[in-house]
């Protein structure tokens, strides 16, 4: 009898622990969600219990976002930036990752590590000189400056991820194609790329989420409202003067966060393998 009791106690404390961690992590999102659909009179009444709806939920804040603010424009900007940056990243990182994986010399490996280390150079170290470069190119205050700058962190990260993938792809497949009369380039295009479609798709999703997450460069280079990407627009433009409109803010944050959260969640394991790849093998 005491044994079953101990087991029940153990189980209970285990699930209490799990519940604690889940609430700790997800509470701010619950808060975003509930705030986004609350009526203002419910939201700004300190005597109301803030954990639940005290009045009927409303779509007012979301309607307001799309009608009265540039929210749709920011979504569009983010989409354009994401697509362009992804295109640049794929065109440069796929060949680079392939070549780095196939280089046999020590130099190739050093180059691979060097490329990866550039991912660690932080935006806060580079934003000053980059803002001057952006100004010289006439891109200041334009979302195209972000299309130019974002590949500086997406290319190194994706090249590193793809390098790991191509290393796992047996070189014999391409060698066989070369023996059969394919050129080196032909073997890369016709053999290696079709076999790496899943890896390239992962990289596409990553690049896209990385561009959506970025904040520092966007804040530094873009100040006109109609050029802002979604993350910057929501966090800096929905505050008028000193007044925070929490319903709209949380609705905007929610809409921007949900797709990123889902995409990232699906590919998180690959992300972790990407950055720790070296360490687990040993």
């Amino acid at each position, binding site marked *: 009898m005491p044994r079953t009791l101990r087991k029940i106690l153990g189980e209970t404390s*285990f699930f209490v622990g799990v519940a604690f*961690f889940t609430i700790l*992590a997800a509470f701010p999102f619950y808060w975003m969600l509930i705030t986004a659909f609350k009526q203002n009179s419910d939201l700004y009444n300190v005597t109301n219990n*803030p954990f639940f709806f005290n009045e009927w939920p409303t779509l007012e804040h979301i309607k307001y976002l799309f009608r009265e603010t540039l929210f749709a424009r920011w979504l569009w900007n983010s989409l354009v930036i994401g697509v362009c940056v992804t295109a640049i990243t794929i065109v440069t990182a796929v060949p680079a990752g392939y070549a780095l994986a196939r280089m046999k010399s020590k130099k190739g490996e050093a180059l691979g590590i060097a*490329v990866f280390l550039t991912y*660690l150079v932080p935006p806060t170290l580079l*934003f000053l000189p980059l803002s001057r470069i952006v100004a010289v190119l006439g891109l200041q205050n334009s979302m195209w400056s972000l299309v130019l700058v974002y590949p500086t962190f997406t290319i190194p990260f994706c090249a590193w991820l793809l390098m790991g993938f191509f290393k796992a792809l047996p070189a014999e497949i391409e060698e066989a194609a070369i023996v059969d009369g394919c050129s080196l380039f032909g073997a890369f295009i016709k053999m290696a790329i079709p076999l790496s479609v899943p890896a390239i798709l992962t990289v596409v999703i990553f690049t896209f989420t990385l561009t959506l997450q970025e904040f*520092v460069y966007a804040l530094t280079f873009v100040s006109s409202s109609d050029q802002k990407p979604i993350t910057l627009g929501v966090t800096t433009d929905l505050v008028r003067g000193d007044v925070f409109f929490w319903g709209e803010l949380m609705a905007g944050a929610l809409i921007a966060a949900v797709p990123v959260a889902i995409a990232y969640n699906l590919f998180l394991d690959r992300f972790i393998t990407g950055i720790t790849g070296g*360490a687990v093998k040993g």
Partner: protein
Amino acid sequence: MAVIAEPVAKPVSRLNFLLDRRDVFEAILVAPAVIYVLLLVGLPLLLAIYYSLSAYTIYDPTWKFVGLSNFIDVVENPTFPQTLANTFIFTFGSQLLGLVIGKFGAFLLLRPFPGRKIVRALIVLPFVIPVALATIAWRWLFDSLYSVFNWTLIALHIMDRADVPNWLGTPWLAMLCVVIINAWRFFPFAIVIFLAGLTSVPQDVIDAATVDGAGFWRRNYQIILPMILPIVAIGLIFGIVFTFTDLSIVFLLTMGGPVNATSVLGFAGFQTGIISGDVSHGAAISLFMLPVLLVVVVFMLRFIRRREI
């Protein structure tokens, strides 16, 4: 006889030629990525160093060399020591807190249970959503008037409405909030890193240790911990780099205030270099991050090299 000797030399030179071509081919494939990174990471890095040694501002874009005087100005600024100290507290405080919470979380999630996938998806939320958006949600949670924490404190009769904390308006509380938010953001990352490490430890090693009489703690700290140390170290290096150089949490939550209490290096560099347009001093402030980054890079290289052995 000479006729026999000749064909021997030929394949060697052809093989050499092929090797050369492979070199050229690989160089061509790598070139676009390397050039992009050199132009937009390497060049700006050198420019940042040069700006910090010059008198460059956006109003007076001169290239005049002034030596180390910018750095001296920065160090002599009375608020700078606090900014530097804040950066270290922010980085190491939040990473330590995140690691401790993460270790416990990983311990719980290691065991299979119904709904584990959903729980994991919810637990990693803080790490996967854009930090700027999460910070805005926290700002609402810590609102001076409508903070849910204060409401709860009042509702449970722990505190009176008159003396509830003003989270972002009190210097030490604001710093605490900034640290907590960053720890909250990184603990799921720590969980996932610990899980990746723990699942890579072969079960037979643990079984062998158990058979040899190693107890729970001994298995944990003398067998498992050393084995997962490399992967945890890489995760920690990431956390340190991205926290030490961050400005978005401070920018969106407190704007460095109240009275400079939460200002960090990245934020101070932004304030001086971008908002005030004093590029040279801003660059000098940002470059104070470089020594820490270099230490981190050296560690990183050591761990990467260890893998090759």
